[in-house]
Every structure is written in structure tokens, then in C-alpha cells.
């Protein structure tokens, strides 16, 4: 099966219903994308599939087809993603950091779609869980990246 990840095409030998998450992490070694719950509740596994924030733990790899997958490892090659990362670093959003790959991906998708998001836009798009409680810092960083 062929998979386009961060601009490169990979040939992967896995069962077609394998979640994209584990193909990224264990087959391709892209461990920046995190496993948190496996049931699309926490958002730690968020990647972009053709620019759309997608929870890869509930995305069978054979459903992706030839769509472009972007992971956190390539986020700074995207101009919006690079701005998001700078805002994250400047505001010092992460604590343990485990959810932050997913938060950065979700924020990047939001700002690509809605360059100047309202508080309601942020609330609707940023549903990823953070056990360290960085929710306010995440919102601050999105506003900073949008400015």
C-alpha cells in the first residue's frame, strides 16, 4: 500500500484496517504523533489529511488513499504551522507536552481555514484534551499566531 506522508511516498505492508496512527508511529517511525486513547476522544493523534485535522487513531490506513498526510514532524515547513510553533514556544504552552503535537496540528488546521478565529471558533476547533490544563495557553497562542 502506498502512503504520502510529509511529501514522501512510502510503501507499507500492513493490514488495510490498521489505524493510520500506528503506521505512522511503528512502521514509519514518526513518533511525534501520539497515542492517547485510540477512540478519537483525546486528539493526541491529530494529523492533517489533505489539510483537514484528522484523528489518525480512528482512520484506517486504507481510507486515506492518495491523500497528502502531514504530521508534526513537517509542521514547520508549512508557513502557518511555523507561526503556530513560534507562538507555542513564545507563550510556553506545553507542560508535559504529550498532547501538544495534536494541539499544534489542530491549531494549524484551524488557522488555515479561519485566519482570524473568534473565541467560539477556537472552542469549536480545539477539542483536544490536555491533562496538564493548558487550554488557556493554547487559546492565547492561537490568538498570537493569528495576529
Amino acid at each position: 500500500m502506498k502512503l504520502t506522508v510529509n511529501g514522501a511516498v512510502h510503501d507499507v505492508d500492513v493490514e488495510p484496517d490498521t489505524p493510520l496512527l500506528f503506521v505512522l508511529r511503528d512502521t514509519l517511525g514518526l513518533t511525534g504523533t501520539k497515542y492517547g486513547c485510540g477512540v478519537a476522544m483525546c486528539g493526541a493523534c491529530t494529523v492533517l489529511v489533505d489539510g483537514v485535522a484528522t484523528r489518525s487513531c480512528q482512520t484506517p490506513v486504507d481510507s486515506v488513499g492518495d491523500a497528502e498526510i502531514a504530521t508534526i514532524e513537517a509542521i514547520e515547513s508549512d508557513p502557518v504551522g511555523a507561526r503556530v510553533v513560534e507562538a507555542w514556544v513564545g507563550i510556553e504552552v506545553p507542560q508535559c507536552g504529550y498532547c501538544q503535537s495534536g494541539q499544534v496540528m489542530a491549531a494549524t488546521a484551524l488557522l488555515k481555514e479561519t485566519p482570524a478565529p473568534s473565541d467560539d471558533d477556537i472552542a469549536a476547533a480545539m477539542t483536544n484534551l490536555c491533562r496538564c490544563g493548558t487550554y488557556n495557553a493554547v487559546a492565547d497562542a492561537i490568538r498570537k499566531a493569528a495576529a
Partner: protein
Amino acid sequence: MIRTFRPSSDPSSGLSRRAFLATTGALTLAVSLPASRVLAQAAASAPAPGTRVTAFLEIRPDGAVRLLSPFVEGGQGIATGMAQIVAEELDAAPARFEVECAPPGPDYLFIGGLRFTGGSFSTRTSYELMRRVGAAARDMLMRTAAARLGVPKTELTTDDGRVIHAASGRALGYGELAGEAMTLDPDLEVPLRDPATFRWIGKETPRLDMRAKSTGAAKYAIDLTQPDMLFAAVVHAPFLGTKPLSVGNEAAVKAMPGVHSLHLLDGAVAVCADSWWRARMAVEAAEVAWSDPAPTGIDSASADFSSAGMLAALRAWDGEVLEAEAIGDAPGALAGAAQVIEADYDAPYLNHAQLEPPSALAKFDPDGTLHLWLPNQAPEMFQAAAAKVAGIEPARVHIHSPILGGFFGRHFVYGPGNPYPQAIQLAKATGRPVKLVWSREEEFAMDAVRPLSATRFRGAVGPDGMPVAIEARTVGEGPMGRYFGAGPVDPSAVEGIVEKPYAIPNRRMMFGKLPHPVTIAFWRSVGHSMNDFFYESFLDELAEAGGQDPFAMRRALLAKDARRLRLLDEVADLSGGWKRGPYEVEGETRARGVAMASPFGSETATVAEVSVRDGEVKVHDVWVAFDPGSVVNPKIVRAQVESAVALGLSQTLVEQAVYEDGRRRDANFDTYAILDRSRMPRVHVRIVESGAPMGGVGEPGLPGVPPAVANAVAALTGRRPRALPLSSMTFS
């Protein structure tokens, strides 16, 4: 029957050597640990903790500094804090530092002869020692430079990684000097820097781990691999303590794609495979026959064990109680009171729900040495435990401690609550490195839980409306008693109920031990996470009985306590002046509650504003005035307080781990609710540096939150929450 118990002050306990611990006023682990353990650690040949500079510092030729920290980074910012402290005395900017958690060893046993990252101990136990490490290293570099340049050391100065001889205009980089300098004997008496000249300590020095954690580059235990490694997944027995007897479809499981082997373990079935997903699919396809649990009772996770049954047992318990604290004559005062106020409080079991599922990567070298990479907050304790499992000497177990994807108390040694014993057995059985990852479902089945607890209060107010007596009876079990053999009264079960600062003349606090049949845990702020909710809520009940405003009553009860009185006034000021309400804001009715806490050597005063929306409590703002004595990084401290507020609110509003029919009810985040963005309030933190001995930071922000919110709910609705979470109450 009541037996009197007083904590002993054994001078050999290790505490006496650390007066700063003794003066925190908090219950400390060091107080409770058996002296023999401490003495055993102080073997004559071992270096005293914090005295061997090379155990902590490596300075590379390019001037980069590798710091081996006694503490593990799990979000609390300790890696940056340690770098700031050492950098200040070493005179090399924190940005030059890479920080790793040190391997097991006697150099790092900073906490009463032990080491762990917990109890909010890290900075306060290491601050002086780590300054001294930095200062001694700088002195070694200067001595080397003096010899090389042929000048007296007194003519040398340093500046951010260089030794400078101003008179001759010459300078040498630390990286050029380090190879030789690090062979010298450290002079631990070298003078420390004048705090008035600090450049990094006490400042908002940028965190070192932000870019790696914002770009996916940070590596957690779950991300690690080894050549030729197998992935493993497990399914645990449905009841704690039961075992797999057989697998009916063993051949079919073994024939599944990528499967290497199937293993029956103690309390679990495991599959090793060439990917974790294949291992998981195979192990979950196994048709396992399990042994039966006990049919009934609370001595084990029996077939009818439940949270509700355990709570009923705690409430109904009539065994011997131990006196944890007695001041004045509470029984007499209560007997003579015109009115006695009584209330039962309880709080549920809780998961840690750190977002990184637990894992363990085990690898045996050809000589039988074991390497273990695992999330842990106590390397020496895991080393000892792993050695037992592997059947080898502890010195042959190498513990690697990557950064933690959250911990909150999750990563201590918890018997069946950790994956490492399984990983060791699988690595042994397969002869290959094995990375075992627990799925979220297995984690929520096996995570050690914050114990459920129940406290019954009795209290009375005098003719002036002020409390004259308070009595508490707490029944249950704390993690300190279970894992560290604490004395008859488990401090982790009663902290937050004893040693309260309020001038209530008659007090009696009692503890009755009734063990839990499940794996219990330390959970951020431990006993304080529920006991301060119990006590500060009941204090509001006494205020109401006496017709007092709860804020004014606390001020009156603290009239002679300048530090806490100031903190109350600071939180009132921060929140725009105390007002209880109810009052109207933005078209809805809101009210506020106040609570104080004295956890882990620090002091907090907390105010929360709430309303009820769509039948649920909505928390709008939380204000915290926080006095840890002094701080190393105010920005990190504020972030930690906000984080603690979030976790405190999570357990206040929505969270509980429920046992029904002997098993955990909730297997994943779809039904185990934690605080999400929609429930996150604005959080306002004011740091008050009173100059008191340094207290903890990571946990103290939490305990004031549940009672501040509950007191606000009572003010708003007239209904008094006496159990958590508040989602169990219905509001029309």
C-alpha cells in the same frame, strides 16, 4: 476506643539533617520513613548526595552543559528550574543546558536518603545542594584556568561560560577547561553568589523544552525503540488478582499476522508481535479462561465489590480509631454545645489519566544485564523492584528515565499497576528486547487509583457565632501507609484535616484504617486532594451555623497568623474584593466561595466564581494567591498553579473511577470524563514571596479548588455539596 498516637521525631530519620524540611510544617515523606532504610542508604563508601560534581555535570568541548538532574521532567518545569539554579552559580546561561534525569545512584538521594520526583519536594530539597554543585564546578574551572594561565585564581572572573583574566585580556572557555577541571576535588565550601546579583534564579527564564514539545521532537518512553525489538500488548484479568488458566484459540492467535508468541502471565495474557497494533489485535482476539474472583466482600476485588459498597463500608466502620490530633477538649465542648452540626463527606477513586499510556521497554544484554526504559518518578525504587522480578542484583539493572507524558503520581512502584514486570518476563521469554505498551483500556483497568475516602465531622459554634469545637473521623487507607509503611496514623490519609491554622480552641481528629482491595496511589496533592475539600467545606457549614460570612470568619480565625491573613487579603484583592453573593453578572446569577490550604510547605488562598447553566455547575474564574516562600521561576510557578487548578476542577466537576461488580466501569475517555476546554475557567495567579522556607509548587495549587467551588455552589444554590464530583448532583 481511641488510642493516642504522636509522630516520633527520630533524630536518625534523616529529617534532622535537613532542617528546611522540618520547617515546612507539612507532613513529609521523610518523617514517616523507617530509619533503617535511611541508614542503609548512608553506607560508608557512598558519596554524600550532591557532593560529587561529575555525577551532575558534563561540560562539552563546545561549552554545552549536560546536567544530570535528580528529578524527572514531566511537565512541571523542573529541568529548567534545575538548569537555572546550577547555571546561576556555574555562570553559564541556562540556554546552554541539556537536562536529563540521572540514573540510579547514591549522589541523587536528596529526600531523606531517598529519591523520587513527588511530594512537591524537588526544588525545595535540592536548591542549596544544586547551587553548591554549580559553584564548586565554577571553582574547579577557575583553578584549572589559573594553573594554565599562570596567574592567581583571585585575579580571575567568569562570564557566561568563560574564565577571564582581565589584566592580561586572556580568556578560556569552560569547554577547553572541563576535561582537566572535572578531575579536581570539588571544594564544597566555596562561597555562593549573592542573591541580589541573580540573573536567572527568580526570573522568567525561558523553559528549555518548549521547542521539542511543540514540534513532536520530544521523546517519551512510549516512543523509544531498540534494534530487533518486539512489540507487546496485554489483556488483564477482568478482576484484580485473578489469573489466566488457558487460551482456547491459541493456535489461531499465533497464526495472526506478525505474531511472534503468546504468553500467559500473572494476571494477564500477552502477545509479542512485529508491531504493536498486530500484538494488540491478536491478544484481544484470545479466548481466555480466567480464574474466578471471590464471590463477595471488600477484602478483595470480589465479584460484587463496588465503589458504593466500599463507601458504605467506610461510613459504617466501627473499629478502633487512632487520634491523629487533639487540642483542647473537643468531646467536652461538643457535649455541652447547644447545637452540634454533623456532616458526612466523601470523595471517589480517581484515575491519573495522564495522557501517555504506560509502557516499558526491557532489554537484556548478553551478560544478563537488564536495561529498562520506562516512565518513572523513582529510579532507585524501580531498580530494586525490577531486580527482584529479573532475579538479578540491582546493580545489574539500568534504569533509563525519559521525560513523562504527564504523571500526577502515576509512576511510582504500584505492584500490578505497572507494566515493567510483564516487559521483563517477555524479554526473558523471547530473548529479544520487548516494548510493552498498555492500551488506554488496560491502563484504565489497572491504573493505581486515588483512594476513595470518607470523613465524618461534628462541630459547634459559640454564642458569638464562632466555631468552638471541631471533630473529624476519617476512615480509609492512604498510599503512604501502603507503600512506605507509615506509622499507625497514615499522614497521607489525614493531611489537610490535621495541622489546620484556624484558632478553633477544641479539636480532635481521628483516623480509622480500612484497607482498599484495589491498587491505591499517590495522586496530585495526595490526601489534600480531598481532605481540604472536606474540611474547608465543613468550615463554611460552621460559618453558616454561626451566621458568619465565611471570608470574615476565616480572617477572624487567623487574626494572629500574619502570613495566612495576608494571603487571604491578597486573594480578595486579586479577585476585586471579597463578595459572596449571589449577585447578577452578565444576565445570570453567580456566587463565590473561598478556601485556604497549607499543602507541601506552601500556602494558598483560593476564590472561585460559579453559576449553574443547563443544570451543571459552571466555573467562570478561579483566583489563587500562592505563597511558596520564594520561587525560582515565576512563569513556571504560575503555569503549575494553573495546571493544578485544572486538575482540581476536573475532580470537582466530572471525574470519578467507579467500581461496579468488581471491575472498573469506565474503560476510556469516552465515559471517564476529564476537564475539557469547555469547562476551563479563567485562572488568575498571584505569587506572594513571603520569604518563609521554600515550599512545594507542583501540587499546592490543587487542594483549595474543590472547596472554593463547593462553597460557591452552596452560596449560589443553598445546597451543600458533600461529595465529589458535582456532576453527581442535579440542579434545576
